[in-house]
């Protein structure tokens, strides 16, 4: 197949040049086509509709202000907030035998002890997210301690608090994208510590383990829990 004798080389080279020229000419429109303005990257509709991020381990909610000790506050009116514990805290302890809520009229201070979770591993305090006075207690949560774990931001709310310094309190709380980043950061650190295989995680990526304090320290889960909820007496701020 030797087409390299001189006479045949003329035609062979001519064809090669033509092909090269055709390539260069065609390249320009091709490049422009490929770089054409794309429509918004199409995300499968199901994912978009879900709204929340399917792979997040810990659920957050809109319109909520988070305290680094994993209590949350939702402003109902300029001087009334609903208060509860967040999904992280719920998954941290896993299950509650009961919950000790302060009585109506009890004063609360932001960053001070507010209520106590009674778990299998013992009593674990949580800090109040706001200053104020307890206005109402969620008796449903008291009688059914599953509720704050399963619906922490909805039916599982814990207290309604009347406060006068809510605006100032809000400066110490996390919300919106800051809160999300805080939670993602926490999740990342947990992931790298806890191990990443599917055994700990549902098919769709949700965290399977309830009470992962028990996974982190089977001997003393209450120490781990207090550490995260900032009630281990170590004096800590996020």
């Amino acid at each position, binding site marked *: 197949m030797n087409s390299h004798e001189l006479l045949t080389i003329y035609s*062979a080279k001519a064809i090669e040049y033509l092909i090269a020229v055709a390539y260069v000419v065609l390249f320009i429109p091709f490049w422009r086509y490929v770089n054409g303005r*794309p429509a918004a990257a*199409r995300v499968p509709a199901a994912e978009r509709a879900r709204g929340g991020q399917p792979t997040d381990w810990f659920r957050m909610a809109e319109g909520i202000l988070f305290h680094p000790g994993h209590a949350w506050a939702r402003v109902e009116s300029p001087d009334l907030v609903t208060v509860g514990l967040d999904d992280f805290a719920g998954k941290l302890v896993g299950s509650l035998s009961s919950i000790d809520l302060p009585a109506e009229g009890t004063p609360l201070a932001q960053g001070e002890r507010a209520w106590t979770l009674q778990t299998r591993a013992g009593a674990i305090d949580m800090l109040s997210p706001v200053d104020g006075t307890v206005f109402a207690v969620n008796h449903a949560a008291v009688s059914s301690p599953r509720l704050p774990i399963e619906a922490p931001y909805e039916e599982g709310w814990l207290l309604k608090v009347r406060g006068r310094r809510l605006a100032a309190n809000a400066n110490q709380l996390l919300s919106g994208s800051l809160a999300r980043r805080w939670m993602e950061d926490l999740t990342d650190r947990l992931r*790298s510590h806890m*191990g*990443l295989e599917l055994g700990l995680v549902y098919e769709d990526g949700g965290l399977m383990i309830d009470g992962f304090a028990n996974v982190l320290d089977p001997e003393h889960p209450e120490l781990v829990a207090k550490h995260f909820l900032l009630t*281990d007496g170590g004096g800590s701020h996020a």
Partner: protein
Amino acid sequence: MHTSNTARQALPVSWVRDKLLMGMSLRRYLRSLATPFDAVAALILLVGVPVIIYRFTFGLGAVTNLSQANPWGLWIGLDVLSGVALAAGGFTLASVVYIFGLKQYHAVVRPAILTGFLGYFFVVVGLIVDLGRPWKLPVPLVYSWGTGSVMFEVAWCVCLYLIVLALEFSPALFEWLGLRKLREWIVGLTIALTVFGVMLSTLHQSSLGALFLLVPHRLHPLWYTPFVPIHFFVSAIIAGLSMVIVESGLSHRIFRNQIGASAHADLEYITLGLGKAASVVLFAYFFLKIQALADSGAWALLNTPYGYWYLVEVLGFVLLPCVLLAHAVRRGNVALVRAGAAVAVAGVVLNRLNVSVVAMNWNAGVRYVPSWMEVVTSMAVITIGVLTFRFIVNRMPVLHQHPAYQPH
């Protein structure tokens, strides 16, 4: 947030359980392996590993359909040649991120390097299975240098590049082991390693093609061209880009638990970007193939059975993915980009098999067809590679950042 001393003391767990079993008890870990994928993998290994042992005990003739007329077969075409091409994502993405400075692609550079490292590692494994006297592998490396041979150059380049890839991956390993000083030191070498890696990759990707320069008497004229080294190099880039697209798409589904929400959105951008690059390179490669045809003057051969097969390879697996990818990128259709990339990957594998097996000895009497044992062996080697990938990705910071370290 500072950790109290009591909290730190209160997190024991032996190193084995923490690092290797990911914090689970042995029983739980074994139970977590009861998935359909693991069952299939176990089946493949159950058959494949004994076959490999049999091959080493009784020789190549007992296991393969290789013959005096057909000395190279599936193991060379698939395990070695295709394996090296598909592992090209390592040097391609490393160039993109570290040399061209396109940090937007950072999220996929570590998986690409891991794929590259494991790819080359298991190429060497596959080669050892194919070599008649694998224990002599050090000979051309240490003291008997056949410098006139392209294969000599390939052997050296692959060896050196395997070391480079190991070093490029080591930051992830050191982060996992908590060896901070070592990790910082190695990260400082990134540019040097990348340049060295690109150089070595250029050489051996093209040299694997140059191996076939020696066989004009055996290789069908449509596939024999003096430009085969350039073709192999360019198609390796295509394979590398496409493999990263495919592999990242699969990883994001399979290892969902590791990947945060923002990373998913990032991957769409990355996939589109890589798809665009792959499409452009495919366009150029298509014309390279036409040029090779013009150079050989073998146009008439297109109208033969081998010619039709050649057209299938070039039109169906080069031109088609080029167009698919271009269209998909323009429309922002990430799923279609992944499909196009898969076709491109298949096309490169097909090309390697064509050159080494299908179009090789095309004019000989007895044609070679791989035996079932060869197929099972290749599957076993690939399966072990995939399992290793999963093992590493589940434990080391490949698909996610290690929170204690700066991204590099």
